[in-house]
């Protein structure tokens, strides 16, 4: 979660590994001995949820195959005569001197540095909260939650003025710095580190003469890897979809992330002499979420294990 809580408001959340429930003596094997029977009824019922989730996405996929005229004249959930997906993709990448490619690279930059950094800070912070006792510790998370509760749209202008004085507006830093904060990531790593890193192990490393930093990187970090992947996933989505903050901080389209660029294309239809490019907006939207979805699918194994691994350590 970034500071642009407005766009990716810290609405959803909870600990992935939150239960303290009876200590985890026996790891749960997937569908242990008494593997339950599959139920068609339950599958169909849950299938309704599935449709609900996928139908709007279907609209996006189908619409991306249509020309500007096709969008206007055909039924939304079925194909138009012309199949223009490849043309649309080509045009999306070449329109306005290929600025879409630039936006894609910007977004990648923000994700790599912003989400990567956010994950690192959350891991460090969560580890500190879980494994150290330090003055002010109890206040840290309370302050974090309290600050998150203030609507960020009103903080936007003060933030802008401050960043402007620091010379950060209209630079990638204006996007990256606020992205570095993920309150949920901090909470998650706190819970996860409490579970996954045995205090004895750290003590042993210290007794062996390892510095705190060395002990962290060599002993704790590998144990935290699965949780790290999960936090990375959430911060990546948050940064990828960041909208409100870039809208205020950036003027130069050369620094736009994808979301802002698409918004600009969408809006240009509503100005005198502006060219309506709805087909490119739709195709661009699809191209924007495609890498995220691909990453979900490819990394599924990791973040699944990340969410559950804390339990199987013993």
């Amino acid at each position, binding site marked *: 979660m970034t500071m642009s809580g407005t766009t990716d408001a810290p609405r959803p959340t909870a600990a992935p590994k939150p239960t303290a429930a009876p200590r985890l003596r026996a790891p749960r094997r997937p569908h242990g001995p008494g593997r339950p029977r599959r139920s068609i009824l339950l599958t169909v019922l849950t299938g309704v949820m599935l449709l609900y989730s996928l139908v709007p996405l279907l609209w996006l996929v189908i619409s991306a195959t249509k020309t*500007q*005229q096709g*969008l*206007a*004249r055909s039924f939304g959930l079925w194909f138009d005569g012309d199949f223009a997906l490849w043309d649309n993709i080509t045009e999306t990448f070449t329109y306005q001197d290929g600025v879409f490619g630039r936006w894609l690279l910007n977004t990648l930059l923000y994700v790599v540095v912003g989400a990567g950094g956010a994950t690192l800070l959350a891991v460090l912070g969560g580890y500190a909260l879980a494994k150290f006792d330090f003055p002010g510790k109890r206040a840290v998370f309370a302050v974090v939650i309290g600050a998150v509760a203030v609507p960020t749209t009103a903080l936007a*202008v003060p933030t*802008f*003025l401050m960043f*402007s*004085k620091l*010379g950060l*507006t*209209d630079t990638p830093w204006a996007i990256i710095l606020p992205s570095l904060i993920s309150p949920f990531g901090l909470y998650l790593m706190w819970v996860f580190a409490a579970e996954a890193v045995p205090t004895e192990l750290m003590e042993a490393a210290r007794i062996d003469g390892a510095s705190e930093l060395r002990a962290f990187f060599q002993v704790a970090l590998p144990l935290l890897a699965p949780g790290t992947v999960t936090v990375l996933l959430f911060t990546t989505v948050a940064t990828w979809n960041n909208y409100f903050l870039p*809208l*205020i901080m950036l*003027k*130069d*389209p050369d620094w736009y992330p994808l979301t802002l660029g698409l918004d*600009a294309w969408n*809006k*240009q*239809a*509503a*100005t*005198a*002499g*502006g*060219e*309506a490019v*709805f087909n490119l907006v739709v195709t661009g939207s699809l191209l924007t979420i495609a890498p995220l979805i691909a990453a979900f699918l490819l990394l599924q194994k990791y973040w699944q294990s990340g969410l559950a691994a804390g339990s199987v350590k013993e």
Partner: protein
Amino acid sequence: MPKHSRRLLRGLGLLCALALGATACGSDDDNSDQKAVGAADIQAALKKGGSVTVWAWEPTLKQVAADFEKKYPKVDINLVNAGTNNDQYKALQNAISAKKGVPDVAQIEYYALGQYALTKDVTDLKAYGADKLAGSYSPGPWNSVKSGDGVYGLPMDSGPMALFYNKKVFDKHRIAVPTTWDEYVEAARKLHKADPKAYITSDVGDAGLATSLLWQAGSHPYKVDGTKVGIDFTDAGAKKYTDTWQQLIDEKLLMPVVGWSDDWYKGLGDGTIATLPIGAWMPANFVSGVKDGSGDWRVAPLPQWTKGADTSSENGGSSLALPELGKNKELAYAFVEYANSGEGVQTRIENGAFPATTKDLNSEAFQNTEFPYFGGQKANKVFAESARNVPADWKYLPYQVYANSIFNDTVGKAYVSGTKLSQGLADWQEASLRYGSEQGFTIDK
């Protein structure tokens, strides 16, 4: 006007204060400290070179900037699309508050310019000789860039209104193209009866359209004198507007679809939205956004409030202004003049823009341009005629951007509930005045 010195604060106000002379706004002596910049100074600056940052979303400026750089190789025009209208104003307002990152030239729509002029956040161009261009622009746009004696921008384009109508639909149902608003209402009834899916136009409450129609009807709702404002939506002109439009609303003759939405574009293409009273800049949008309607649409003069009259009004359009905190003022002015008064105008017309300069409006080539989209009609004749007939005495509020933002909170109610349009306007009036008073304006009852 108050005699004591006023402090006009920009944006957050904590950051900068600008002390102005005794007769703050719109008087002739508040620029006494500004020395005139002659053509020679500007030429010298062009020779010396430098860079100019321009914030604009107008697409045709791209070519103009390239041409300008070619003509003056030492000048670098940095054209930035910092967002479309409101987004850009927010960005500009923020930059002014921060006193950092302010562009040298900014595109500002006519209705929004007043506020920047009032707070002196844009430069009075009189010192650069802009006042001498008065005769070269049509009355509507020129009046819009003037505030008191100052000239706060040069008109870039204009939007003299016309009635775009779908001829195919009118022919099909044998409806005559309306020449008065009464006929317009009649046509709306006939059309909707003949085809319940079709509407005379779409409107869910749009501040731009409402103020333009009030303007045409001879209403003068906004009275602005420096820091004194008054609003009155009950004059005779306003009554004409509310009486007529109320009928369209009551009989559900307006398609409840928001302008510029997907549905709106579809309606323009498939004949369910039969007319569009809008500014003359619209053709380019038709060509790119409503391809399916090509050949169906035509342009007619705006319907009249009084039969036989030929009054028109302006809808949209913007100027290029020089923010006070911008740099390289001479170069910036040179570019603005080139784009809006010089060679750039022709380039922009060729790319689909609608000019504000009378010379171009009246040129034979311009008037005889045939629009394939409008079945070969010489539509510019209609637009140019309209531009001549815009009453020059219209005023916007010095905080019209805010007022327009709450239009749908107030007048919008008339479109979705039993509230009368006149009541909606009264609410709008009250809310706008309240804001004015909160902002320190003197309210003229």
